[in-house]
């Protein structure tokens, strides 16, 4: 089986490193082809496999624990009335 072509565009013009690929995935910038490529890359790259799962777990934790919930209702009210006053 031949290696599929790497869909990651290297920033430097060199072959993209594991770290560059992983960051692209983590940062949510990867295309479906890049994600697919990285998935099969992880099958034979243990460091990527480990880092990916840890980094994604942290990212998910940030998403669930740091989203802050809703803005205070009184803030929304203040903003709305401030704008109402500025429109005659």
């Amino acid at each position, binding site marked *: 089986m031949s290696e599929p072509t790497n869909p990651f565009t290297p*920033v430097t013009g060199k072959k993209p*490193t*594991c*770290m560059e690929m992983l*960051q692209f995935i*983590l*940062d*949510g*910038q990867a295309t479906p082809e890049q994600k697919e490529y990285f998935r099969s890359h992880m099958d034979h790259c243990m460091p990527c496999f480990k*880092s990916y*799962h*840890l*980094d994604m*777990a*942290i*990212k998910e*934790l*940030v*998403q669930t*624990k*740091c*989203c*802050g*919930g*809703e*803005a*205070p209702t009184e*803030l*929304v009210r*203040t*903003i*709305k009335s*401030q*704008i109402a006053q*500025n*429109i*005659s």
Partner: protein
Amino acid sequence: MEDVVRQHYTDKEKREIFDHEFLPHINSMYNFGYRLTLDRDDAKDLVQDTYFKAFRFIESFQRGTNAKAWLFRILKNSFINDYRKKIKEPNKVDYQEVESYYNSEDVDRQITPDLRVDALKDMIGDEISNALNALDVDFRTVIILCDLEGFKYEEMAKILDIPIGTVRSRLHRARQLLKEKLSEYAKSMGYKNT
């Protein structure tokens, strides 16, 4: 700098834009304000001020374009101009260094802090939020913009007025620092990180 094409809106249109394109982002804006100032009252002031500015400058906003990125940029600028001066936080981070390290070969050989996914499962309280808040404000910011708000590199570059390469290096360093903080927590919770 992009050319600002001034739009002409009637009061009714202004109202529509404000209600349907600006206000729906209020929760994200409030969280961003809080993560920048780390103070609920300051966050309220900052968000209120941002919406007021957004309304005043509404004619430089083009309907149907990325309102969220536009609002985030105003908030970030207000923070820098009005708040950051007040907080006499010495700038400890050498961003030039962050970037040159990122572009060096060493970055691939860096030591990943020992931390296991298992240890994260027990961080059900404020650990992660505290760890994030403990990062320098510029690192905190990129994590929020990327992980919570899902902005693309290009959008982040515009919001923060920095090149895309800097966005990438800053995000990379921010993730690394966050991991280090969490690894310290894990150790204090008695996890042996091997």
